[in-house]
């Protein structure tokens, strides 16, 4: 049995193998592997006894269920109009310079992916971003560099 197979069997045992368990299982895999591989999606289809197309169709619908390989830390910068007004551009520039990647890319050491996302619910404290599930708000370029350095030394 492959590692992925084993993981998915365990997840199906934990969450159940009905259709309603699909998204919790997909979320758990993204949490563990940072993205949904084809192998994982095929294996889920097998375990839940649904077609692989249904698994992929569901996964591809949700922006947080990545089907492309991502880094260990996924940075999602809020791109709402309020974020724009409060200096999102500077934050993106700082992240791009610090990580040496552009929006949409992943660092070569697979540590960070840099993405933009729609309103994350912190318009009172923009600019903001999520790193995996942790929100960071009232960002400044200096603050961003400190945060990234903390993640680098983790």
């Amino acid at each position: 049995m492959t590692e992925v197979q084993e993981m998915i069997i365990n997840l199906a045992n934990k969450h159940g193998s009905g259709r309603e368990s699909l998204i919790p299982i997909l979320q758990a895999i993204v949490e563990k592997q940072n993205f949904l591989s084809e192998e994982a999606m095929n294996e889920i289809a097998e375990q839940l006894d649904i077609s692989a197309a249904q698994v992929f169709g569901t996964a591809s619908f949700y922006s947080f269920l990545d089907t492309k390989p991502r880094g260990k830390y996924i940075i999602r910068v809020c791109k709402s109009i309020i974020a724009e007004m409060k200096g999102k551009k500077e934050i993106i520039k700082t992240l791009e310079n610090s990580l040496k990647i552009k929006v949409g890319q992943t660092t070569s050491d697979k540590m960070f992916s840099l993405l933009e996302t729609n309103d994350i619910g912190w318009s009172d404290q923009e600019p903001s971003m999520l790193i995996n599930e942790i929100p960071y708000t009232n960002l400044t370029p200096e603050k961003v560099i400190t945060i990234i350095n903390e993640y680098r030394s983790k």
Partner: protein
Amino acid sequence: MESNNLKKTDIIFGLCNCTSNKKYPVLAEVIQKTPNDIITEIIDSGLKGRGGAGFPTGLKWKFAAAGNNPEKYVICNADEGEPGTFKDREILLKVAGKVFAGMAICGYCINASKGYIYLRGEYKFMLPGLNKALLEFHEIIKELGYNFTIKILLGSGAYICGEETSLMESMEGKRGEPRNKPPFPVAEGFNNLPTVINNVETFVNVTMIQKYGVEEFKKLGTQDSRGSKVFSISGDTPNSGVYELELGMKLSDFVEEYGDGDTKAVQVGGASGFCVPRKKFDETIIGFEGVPTGGSMMLFNSSRSMYNVLSNYLDFFAEESCGQCTPCRVGCQQLVQGIKAVKKGVKDEEYLDTLLKLSESIKITAKCGLGQSVANSFFSIVTNFKEEMIY
């Protein structure tokens, strides 16, 4: 002359004994009443849904209570994805117990034993705290005689899942594509069984109505908009944050209190809401009789380009459109491209009229609230700030 007619309230976040002391005394009182009496109280209170659409809460419960189906559900819609909204975040961080209590009251009224909170993926950081609070809650209500449990499900970053039927599709493990209505969720909701789905804040209001009584609740607000509302205030304001205000206020009073002295426009109700220009502040009432809102209030001062504002909203809709129906999927893209073409001079200004007609068509023909509401911001921004769209 009174300098300000705004009435600030402290009901939603205010300390009360209803859920404190780890005892939930409000739930001990509620279970003494009959479900029917409670539903009648909620109807009498005039409470309308706080997510934005404003359906009378008591009526919704009454419909769901009517059927004899052995299995029904209570869902709390905590998928607040509307740009500029963050009030549910604060409610869940500060007074989650009042939300749980409101859900349990609903469960008791409609005879449902299962409740779900659909929490947006962006708020995953709250999950450990909420689950801990739920453990305690479950123990207490069991002792009080309630047969009700709440489970939290996480979203995965799709705005459309705030639409109630999409949310249910998502809970069922599918793509979050809206269903046709009718049937409405009260008849066929989650798993095609009768379901009450309410906004986070609506459940808190239910708890507070049970705590303070219908008459107290009705003292606030207007005939059409009873009670107070939690507003998410952001943009060009020195006081960004969450504020609880009486419904039915004049926008001019609001701007006087929260504006920066140079407010050009207020976007009421998020990207799917309406843009009100300065000249209309005085005649605009915030409430179901005027401009309704789920609570998002974005202020823009005269340094801002309303073209940029509209362009940002349209990009948002084009990205979040689920793609199921053509008017929304294609229409949003056309609006995005269209205003760019006018701005660049590729199309002349009359093209804006064509785009306005298109937005009207989307409003009439789109399947769900997302597509239908694109025209709100499009029409109100384009007609009120036409020069900014062209030059």
